[in-house]
């Protein structure tokens, strides 16, 4: 098992190098704004621009640039400096991480707490009115783009522009350590908006998975030995049906930790996604490179965690 994990981690590192190389090539080769020109500001002389190009190392061959980047990354975990503000990308990302973590984990808790029970009840009361109603609602929420839903709830409930002024609106985020009360209240709407679509998906997946599980022979066996129905459903049914849920859960959380771009942008939450969004509008390549790398890292880690978790959840899974 240790060998397997070590091998997975090494593959993960290789994958990260490949992802870096790809973003490197994509952003340098595709026609984007010239970072040196952007940095130099309006009406800069060609000489100044050339000087900036040398300062940023943009005059070196692409392969050398990549080599220097990788060297800094592996030796010092140095992600470079923003073309735009000159700030360290590493510290920018670390500064933004708590907001993204808060948003993602809170929303993840919500969508599991809402989606799974609805999925379970729907599966057990299949084709009932309750099942139809909740699956219909789920379809609506799955189909709603989250930036749209975000704008709607802001319009309805935000303290500044809302029709009913209940929750703090966009741009009210405060750090957990600086003001816990404000942190919580400012995240209520973003959590709900981010969780809505996921809760809908999870309810549907849970329902499908549990319906399939409840038709299995071992559920019949559990009933035949006289277990109470509650135990049949929860211990035998849900226990087996939840495995696919955990897989997508880990991957979804991994993706969101790389930045919930839309929700962070709509609610103006200073997270990784917002950082990424701003960097793209400024062609701030080192930040884009850094956030993409962090996002890839989270997804790769989530994948490895899923595989390890499987071994504990399902005794039939063996590492090889």
């Amino acid at each position, binding site marked *: 098992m240790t060998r397997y994990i070590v091998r997975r981690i090494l593959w993960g590192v290789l994958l990260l190098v490949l992802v870096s190389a790809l973003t490197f090539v994509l952003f340098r080769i595709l026609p984007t704004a010239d970072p040196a020109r952007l940095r130099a500001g309006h009406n800069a002389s060609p000489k100044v621009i050339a000087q900036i190009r040398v300062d940023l190392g943009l005059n070196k061959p692409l392969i050398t640039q990549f080599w220097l980047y990788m060297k800094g990354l592996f030796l010092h975990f140095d992600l470079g400096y923003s073309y735009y503000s000159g700030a360290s990308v590493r510290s920018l990302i670390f500064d933004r991480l708590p907001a993204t973590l808060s948003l993602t984990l809170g929303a993840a808790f919500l969508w599991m707490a809402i989606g799974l029970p609805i999925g379970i009840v729907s599966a057990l009361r299949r084709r009932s009115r309750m099942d139809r109603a909740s699956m219909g609602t789920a379809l609506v929420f799955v189909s709603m783009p989250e930036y749209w839903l975000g704008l709607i709830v802001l319009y309805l409930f935000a303290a500044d522009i809302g029709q009913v002024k209940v929750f703090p609106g966009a741009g009210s985020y405060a750090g957990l350590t600086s003001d816990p009360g404000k942190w919580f209240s400012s995240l209520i709407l973003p959590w709900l908006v981010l969780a809505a679509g996921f809760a809908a998906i999870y309810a549907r997946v849970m329902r499908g998975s549990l319906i399939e599980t409840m038709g299995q022979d*071992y559920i019949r066996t559990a009933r*035949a030995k006289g277990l109470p129905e509650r135990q049949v459903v929860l211990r035998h049914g849900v226990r087996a049906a939840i495995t696919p849920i955990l897989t997508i859960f880990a991957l979804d959380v991994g993706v969101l930790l790389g930045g919930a771009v839309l929700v962070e942008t709509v609610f103006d939450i200073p997270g990784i996604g917002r950082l990424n969004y701003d960097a793209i509008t400024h062609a701030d390549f080192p930040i884009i490179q850094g956030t993409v790398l962090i996002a890839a890292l989270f997804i790769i880690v989530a994948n490895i965690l899923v595989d390890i978790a499987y071994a504990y959840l399902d*005794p039939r899974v063996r590492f090889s």
Partner: protein
Amino acid sequence: MSAAGDPLLRVEDLRVSFSTEDGLVQAVDGISYELGRGGTLGIVGESGSGKTVAALSVLGLTRTQGARVSGRIGFEGRDLLALSDEELRRVRGEEIAMVFQDPLSSLHPLFRVGAQIVEAIRAHRSVAKVKARARAIELFELVGIPDPARRVDAYPHELSGGMRQRAMIAMALANEPKLLIADEPTTALDVTVQAQILELLERLQRELSMAVVLVTHDLGVVAEMADHIAVMYAGRIVEVASAERIFTAPEHPYTWGLLQSIPTLDGPREELLEPIAGNPPSPLAPPSGCRFHPRCPYAQPEHARTDPILQPAPGHPDHRVACLLAPEVRRRLWSELREGRPPEQAAAAAGLPAPLLPSAAEAGV
């Protein structure tokens, strides 16, 4: 066909139907049987004959599938069909236990087999986990699983097919039920293991004096174990008698077909096995009249219109058969078949007019 005293299980006019998207499926269509304490009843039929549904219904396991069940299932004087879900739950696994066809899919893949037995015990008795585990080990020993103290901690996929079925049987016996329903307990197993499992069931039945309902498609399986045999076809019992009568003097053409499709060790090597022509009818639209008539080599035109009822064979009140052929004709046919003559010759010898072969061909061979 009752054993001494009141029967343990008396099923009366059991009907089970499911509504499906294609229409109403009458899986079991009015069957009745009895089983005495410690007795063994074999229920034999092809797949789709309703035998499994009939067995599951005794434990109320078709309730959860949205089946409509009517009739009466008397167990020690109580009607199981009239029990509430909770009352029925207390019967399941405690007084009536069940063993299924495929032990791999019937055991929960994520739990250790020992834990699954512990659960079966604790569903009915409040005993400590440690005590229940000790009982599980004892049960493993009883069903002949070597190294039981270690094997109780195995997961189902770590055991061989035979060991898994033994574990299933151990689980069924956990609370010493009065009745064990075994639904095709050997079908999913290797041939060599099949005999071992049957021997085991026989030994356990003797030692624990429980009644057994053995559901199978294979007359060979029930041959040694069952004292009575009910033959099911298209949701109905077409013949029921002592095992001895079924094997020596069967009365129903379908039973003849089943018997002739069993290879015998002492028969000549080149002896042809006679398969029963055609397929079992669709439960959505069972044939009119005698449900076996489209496949029966001896069917007469009126058999497509008249529905036979179970009636005692002359001189044998315990031997009942649902066949429209006259008893003398049936006896003649069987004696011809036993001589090794094919059905057409037997029919001619018994003086039957030309059979309804076209419709037998329609049944789709």
